[in-house]
């Protein structure tokens, strides 16, 4: 991935293109970055849903869906995620590369224009969106929040963050709250839209075989005439935990869930994030990790027990599903593996195998459009885009001592248990 062509289209608007002829499809995505706030998170998320439902040119959901399907099943997607104390709203369009259409149509150019239209030329009635679009998207978003309760693994992880980061910006949910979603109106969302266009940072990413020049030009023209003052939030980092919080919730489920949240003592922009990331992978990121080999394979306590590190916020979360009577045994088992690492109990095999697995995953990601997109979007806050080779070099240079230091930086903050009745 050395061929990124990155240029500035306007103040806080960057356009990056990856020319690649290996794929049958192309994709263009606009990452819209704003500080996460309890006041605006819900409105921003709702707005993106509304924008993706219709445009001035395709003024209702069915018309837009028919247009996309006739472009060989092209897709228009919205996603909302959290990157530290920022909210990242992504609107993307993907579809068949021009070479594979049955009648020689140019899908890439049409989709680039369509995505730009979604963002800049929505279906407006004066200075308001249509009530129908807003009500439908409001319902979708409220349903989406409710559906997170359906999946108990997602629910338990959400409760951990809610309790661990209560009072911190990071504790605000990516979709905000149901109350705020209910407050927004078709008029207020017009203001939300205007504010986003002026204050959000835009990172536009194009992956495909066709010339990205036209797409860049379409977006550059669209930003003409906007007074822009983009702002990105500095994430609040809490380096060490205080007294451990234990929260237990009882529910009528078959399997209990144990989720443990740690302060990792390293976050962006520090270079220690790489050793924290690799330490986390040695602990519970692979099928030869410490947690997999010991609490699953040796002790037969669970089916999954995985750890993941969040470089934006500097935290690590371990989650597992377990029999109610074994919760304490599992928690002790996890803490023992971490203590082992702190005591320097990391073999060369563990270090080298994990490095290989991580680097293998980097190279594999370069073989899919989604993988390339995520390679870049995961580096939006890093200051620059590193190539796979540069990242691999960093990973390969990490020593056992650095992993031990990364483990020593860990402090347990909160334990959330969803216990079966």
């Amino acid at each position, binding site marked *: 991935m050395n061929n990124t062509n990155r240029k500035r289209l306007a103040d806080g608007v960057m356009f990056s293109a990856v020319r690649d002829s*290996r*794929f*049958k*499809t192309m994709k263009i995505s606009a990452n819209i970055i704003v500080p996460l706030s309890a006041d605006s998170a819900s409105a921003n998320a709702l707005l993106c849903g509304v924008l993706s439902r219709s445009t001035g040119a395709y003024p209702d*959901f*069915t018309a837009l*869906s*028919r247009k996309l*399907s*006739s*472009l*060989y*099943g*092209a897709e228009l997607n919205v996603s909302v995620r959290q990157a530290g104390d920022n909210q990242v709203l992504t609107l993307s369009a993907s*579809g*068949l590369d021009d*070479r*594979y259409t*049955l009648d020689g149509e140019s899908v890439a150019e049409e989709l680039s224009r369509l995505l730009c239209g979604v963002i800049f030329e929505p279906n407006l009635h004066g200075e308001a969106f249509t009530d129908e679009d807003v009500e*439908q998207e409001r*319902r*979708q978003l409220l*349903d*989406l929040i*409710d*559906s997170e*309760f*359906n999946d*108990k*693994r997602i629910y338990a992880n959400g409760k951990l963050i809610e309790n661990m980061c209560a009072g911190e910006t990071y504790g605000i949910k990516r979709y905000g709250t149901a109350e705020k979603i209910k407050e927004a109106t078709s008029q207020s969302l017009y203001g939300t839209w205007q504010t986003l266009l002026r204050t959000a940072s835009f990172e536009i990413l194009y992956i495909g075989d066709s010339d990205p020049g036209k797409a860049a030009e379409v977006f550059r023209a669209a930003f003409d005439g906007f007074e822009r003052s983009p702002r990105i939030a500095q994430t609040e980092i809490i380096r060490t935990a205080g007294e451990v919080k234990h929260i237990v919730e009882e*529910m*009528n*489920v*078959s*399997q209990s869930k144990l989720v443990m949240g740690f302060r990792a003592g390293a976050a962006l922009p520090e270079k220690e994030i790489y050793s924290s990331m690799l330490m986390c992978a040695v602990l519970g990121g*692979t*099928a*030869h990790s410490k947690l997999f080999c010991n609490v*699953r*394979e040796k002790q*037969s*306590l*669970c*089916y*999954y027990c995985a750890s993941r590190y969040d470089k934006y916020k500097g935290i690590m979360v371990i989650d597992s*599903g377990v*029999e109610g009577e074994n919760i304490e045994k599992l928690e002790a088992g996890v803490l023992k593996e971490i203590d082992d690492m702190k005591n320097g109990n990391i073999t060369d*095999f563990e270090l080298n*195998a994990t490095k*290989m*697995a991580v*680097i*293998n*995953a980097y*190279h*594999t990601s*370069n*073989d*899919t*459009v989604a993988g390339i997109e995520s390679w870049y979007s995961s580096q939006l806050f890093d200051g620059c885009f590193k190539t796979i080779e540069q990242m691999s070099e960093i990973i390969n240079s990490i020593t056992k001592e650095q992993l031990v230091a990364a483990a020593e930086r860990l402090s347990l903050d909160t334990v959330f248990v969803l216990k079966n009745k």
Partner: protein
Amino acid sequence: MMNTEIKEVKSARAGDSYYKIKHSSGLNIYVYPKQGYRSAYAIIGAKYGSINNCFSMDGGEKITVPDGIAHYLEHKLFESAEGDAFTRYAETGASANAYTSFEKTCYLFSCTDKFDESFEILLDFVQDPYFTEQTVAKEQGIIGQEIRMYDDSPDWRVLFNMLGGMYHNHPVKIDIAGTVDSIAEITAEKLYECYNTFYNPNNMALCVTGNVTVEQVLKTCDRMIKPAEPHTVENIFEDEPYEIVKPYVEQSFPVAMPLFNLGFKERADAPLREAELAATEILLSALASPISALYRELMDNNLINSSFGYELFEGPGYCAVIFGGESRAPEQAAEVIKRYITNIKSDGIAEDDFAVAKKAVYGDIISSLNSVSSISNIIADYHFNGNELFTYIDAVANAGYQDVQNRLQQMLDVNNCTLSVVKNGGEE
């Protein structure tokens, strides 16, 4: 022992080609090189899944095995006397996994370096069963927790409740992993019995996609694959009536969003061929994708949300079309779907809907040829169903309006469907 036969299969539309090989050992091999890719993905599968719980080999006596044993075998095959395969893969950097479905068990890995070494590990452990009383007992706790996890999954429960309401006898209605009780009956001896019956090269397929050559794959296969005499396995299924068991099934659950699956039971005398598959996919897209009047009606009346979807659910001896998703009024949603199907059967699909749906289905299948994992998985699926991928792509491109109309008349019997609902038990 027979000779290895190699055939190249090309598609001008997809701009790709692959090699189909009948190996001298009896193994079916597919190699799909991808120019410019650094990774490779290999999958080897046996035509043996959760539904094969009653069988006889070479005309012998009928054997019935505990529910969930194919999945249990998948877990245990990773172990050998020397250790487990994950530890061996750790030396090569490959990312490995396995899964068991209704009709097959597959083992896979992806890698960017040391393909030959990883490939050797795969072929070695799949041919080297090692089950002892002790290793079998150890897995009870792990799989027990996997079963518990699925017990708490409303998506999984709503599907299996529907299958239970649809099938009288067919084992597709039994959970793939079995139950905590059924897996307690599994022994090393029974695992060997299943292994020796189904893990025969003639009953297996290998698909390798990406940064590989035919020569490279065959060189390792020639050295590693132990030839075996084909034997005849008869899978014994009780007769399954055309009619469903019951039209409605409900389960209470701690959910905030109720879920439904509405399944239309279809005739399953023979697997659908490429042209029928193409017509069916286009039909379902025209009928229920976001372009359709049905989707619009369901949305406008707040009966579905964007989780709504549809699926052709087909395998040996079973076939159904399932519509499903979250809904705050599942019974009303089901009524609207049934009424719409009744009407469209008499009015016919709009020609314009057919044209748009055909392009969407065509785009979907071409797009799936991007990734080495999806290609290998699709080819394995097609192999076990007796179909061929590029023939399917041509069938979509050549599908005519009348083909789709004819399919519509053959399926979706509104008097033979089951609605399954999972909703809140009132406790939460």
